[in-house]
């Protein structure tokens, strides 16, 4: 090892030593944070072992099979989350009851898969599975709170952001009630922004890459972040080289996880083609699962989520000329960033937030996907208090929107002659209106907003 390498190693070591979990401007006020943290933790820990939702149960089963058989089920779940949970189950193996997945040992299949839920939930030991599976969610959730502390330079703003995060009902609902792991990619997106704020481009790209490896959605932010870093280069050639370099860095995690998956034997999980469309995996479709290959490629699933879920317009042409709003607003995001002369940290995260607000306003999104916007919304509300009212309206509207997935709650409405789906649609429309309003408020210059106020 040369002198240069030793110096570099020492530099890295010093960086780690100098890194403080709490930013300096907040550290003296830790005592004001602790009660919020305790309350937040109590709520989270209390909910962790409860609510056996169908999706996490499927994920737990896939991870359980990976742990027991060292075989991977090529499902919609990206490999990193499966490996992470399988590792956790290996660590906590003595505490885990095998009965919850006795179908694995008895070769039993439930059609539709939904039928497995009452059988699994009637097995003792399910609480422990749910608790252990959600430990990483809790860890990343708390770490995300710490990142929010770092993103503000003002003490008050940092502390308010942290407090708001700890009691924010959306991540609590998404992570601990419906048990979705989207908190992990959300954490890495925010970590990427933290690195971006500190001009650490490789770390930022690696973080967004890890987020993308967990949820493909995060890859949408690769180009905006890349643009942020290459803007400063004047030479077009250098811009291209740097862009490619950064994109390669961000692809490393997904390449690594796909390589690991490639070398992991496949567990044969056949699909019952006779099941209804709603009971079959959205990615694999209504096709027989044969010869260790899914019936249809996962890309079809991505297109369903990206395009079919999006609001679209059809022209009166001779053929199907359809304009999808989702790619349209993404193009607007990219072009805005390309045409803007200077890109600051504030401009970037606000652009990302505007894109997300317009996306939620114009597309059907699964309840867990709403978590991506939550830390950015907190940044917005703390940064500019004029957004508080809209934010306070948005959160309850979201909780009406998610009734699309549990319409049975509103069954009493049918009895009084009101259509429950129309009821949800009504609130969903208001939700979209609030999202568009917030996006407009972010985009419009302050002087115009002032003029509107005066009028």
């Amino acid at each position, binding site marked *: 090892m040369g002198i240069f390498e030793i110096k570099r190693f020492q530099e890295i070591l010093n960086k780690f030593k100098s890194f403080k979990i709490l930013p300096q401007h907040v550290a003296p006020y830790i005592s004001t944070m602790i009660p919020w943290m305790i309350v937040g933790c109590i709520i989270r*820990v*209390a909910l*962790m*072992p409860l609510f056996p939702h169908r999706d996490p149960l499927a994920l737990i089963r896939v991870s359980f099979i990976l742990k027991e058989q060292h075989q991977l089920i090529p499902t919609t779940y990206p490999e990193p989350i499966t490996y992470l949970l399988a590792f956790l189950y290996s660590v906590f193996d003595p505490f885990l009851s095998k009965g919850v997945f006795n179908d694995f040992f*008895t*070769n*039993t*299949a*439930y*059609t*539709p898969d*939904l*039928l497995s839920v*009452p*059988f699994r*939930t*009637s*097995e*003792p*030991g*399910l*609480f*422990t599975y749910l*608790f252990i599976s959600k430990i990483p969610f809790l860890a990343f959730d708390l770490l995300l709170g710490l990142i929010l502390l770092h993103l503000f330079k003002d003490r008050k703003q940092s502390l308010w952001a942290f407090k708001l995060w700890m009691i924010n009902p959306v991540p609590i609902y998404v992570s601990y009630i419906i048990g979705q792991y989207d908190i992990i990619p959300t954490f890495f997106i925010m970590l990427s922004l933290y690195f971006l704020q500190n001009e650490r481009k490789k770390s930022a790209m690696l973080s967004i890459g890890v987020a993308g490896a967990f949820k493909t959605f995060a890859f949408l932010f690769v180009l905006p972040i890349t643009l942020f870093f290459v803007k400063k280069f004047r030479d077009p050639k250098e811009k291209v080289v740097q862009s490619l370099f950064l994109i390669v860095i961000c692809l490393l995690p997904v390449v690594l996880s796909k390589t690991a998956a490639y070398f992991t034997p496949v567990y*044969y999980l*056949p*699909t*019952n*083609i*006779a*099941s*209804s469309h709603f*009971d079959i995996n959205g990615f694999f479709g209504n096709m*027989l*699962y*044969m*010869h*260790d290959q899914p019936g249809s490629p996962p890309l079809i699933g991505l297109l369903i989520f990206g395009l079919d879920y999006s609001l679209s317009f059809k022209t009166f042409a001779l053929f199907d000329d359809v304009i999808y709003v989702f790619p349209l607003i993404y193009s607007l995001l990219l072009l805005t960033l390309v045409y803007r002369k200077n890109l600051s940290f504030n401009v970037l995260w606000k652009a990302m937030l505007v894109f997300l607000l317009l996306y939620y306003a114009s597309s059907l999104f699964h309840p867990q996907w709403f978590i991506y916007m939550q830390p950015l919304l907190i940044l917005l509300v703390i940064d500019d208090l004029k957004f508080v009212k809209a934010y306070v309206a948005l959160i309850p509207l979201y909780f009406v929107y998610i009734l699309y997935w549990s319409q049975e709650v509103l069954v009493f409405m049918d009895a009084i002659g009101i259509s429950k789906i129309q009821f949800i649609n009504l609130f969903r429309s208001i939700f979209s209106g609030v999202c568009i309003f917030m996006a407009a408020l972010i985009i419009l210059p302050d002087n115009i907003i002032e003029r509107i106020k005066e009028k």
Partner: protein
Amino acid sequence: MNKLKTFLLILLIILTPAAYLWALNMFFIPPKIRLIPQWKDDVFLTEPQEPFRIGSNFTEGWSIDWQSGQENGDYGFTVQDEVIDLFATFRGYNYSDGIGFNGVSINKTIPNIDRQAYPYLRIEHKESSSDSALMFSFSISDDKGQWFDGEETHVSTSWSVLECDLRKLHNGTIAQISIQLTDEYDRHYAGDMQHAYIKSIGIYKQNPTWTLTHDRAIEANISTEVGTLKIFGKGNMMSGTIVSAQRFSNLTFNAFVPQCLNVSIKTSGIDVAARIAVWTNSSKPLVVLLKTYNDFDWHIEIIDLLSFGINGSTLYKIELGWQQVYDSTNQSIAWYRQLSFNQLEQS
């Protein structure tokens, strides 16, 4: 002091959730879900039981009953290798007899048997052609000479079984049985000499509950080995070929609506998909399972019938079988055992 505080804090962080989990596991025991079988078939009867054979070698007792539109040498029957060959000649509309149709009938006197105990008639037969004009049928008569027409069917060049519950035809004594080969589906039929071959005629205590059905011309059969139903097929099997064992009888569940169908399945390979179809009426099947397995191992399938919209206490028919996934000339087999219709119970 600080280190002790930190240690106690870490202990609290670990112990509190552990105690919470312990309490949940101890005091909140979820109700157990079980399948309660209300109807089951673990016998899978594919062969008739305890036969009383009428024609085992056909050497005695059979005679020509009547003929229509035939000339000497045109009709008759012979017996070879314990198979009766009944033949007649068809030259178009029979103007001479004024009754129009052509054909021949043979009959035999039946000794008195307890028909409440032996109610099922089965005739294994095939013909020299599949011409749609030709009809294969049977009749029975009582001791007073009154005849009752039984089942009739189109002829076929492959062996098939004509089945009948005789109690539905006539409830008294049966004195004779007759077998007919006629052109009653088209009296203008001119196919010249045609043959009907009969392998066996028997009256049985119990008919098979499961019978074979397939949608393509392949070699197929069903059999039962120690409570396991085996559905076999080979030949030129195109993708999509369906072979099944079907059951019509005793599918009324006495007012209980079955929620779950439970059955164990094994297939010969992943080029064949196990297929289960439920018919709630005679018009259309509801396929509730179509699935491939790659391990030549038994798989327990629990199927929620309600999710397929099946919510009656009576079924018209159930089919257990397989569907060819890829073209093949190898044999394809599916095995089924322990079929049951169940209710879900929480306890």
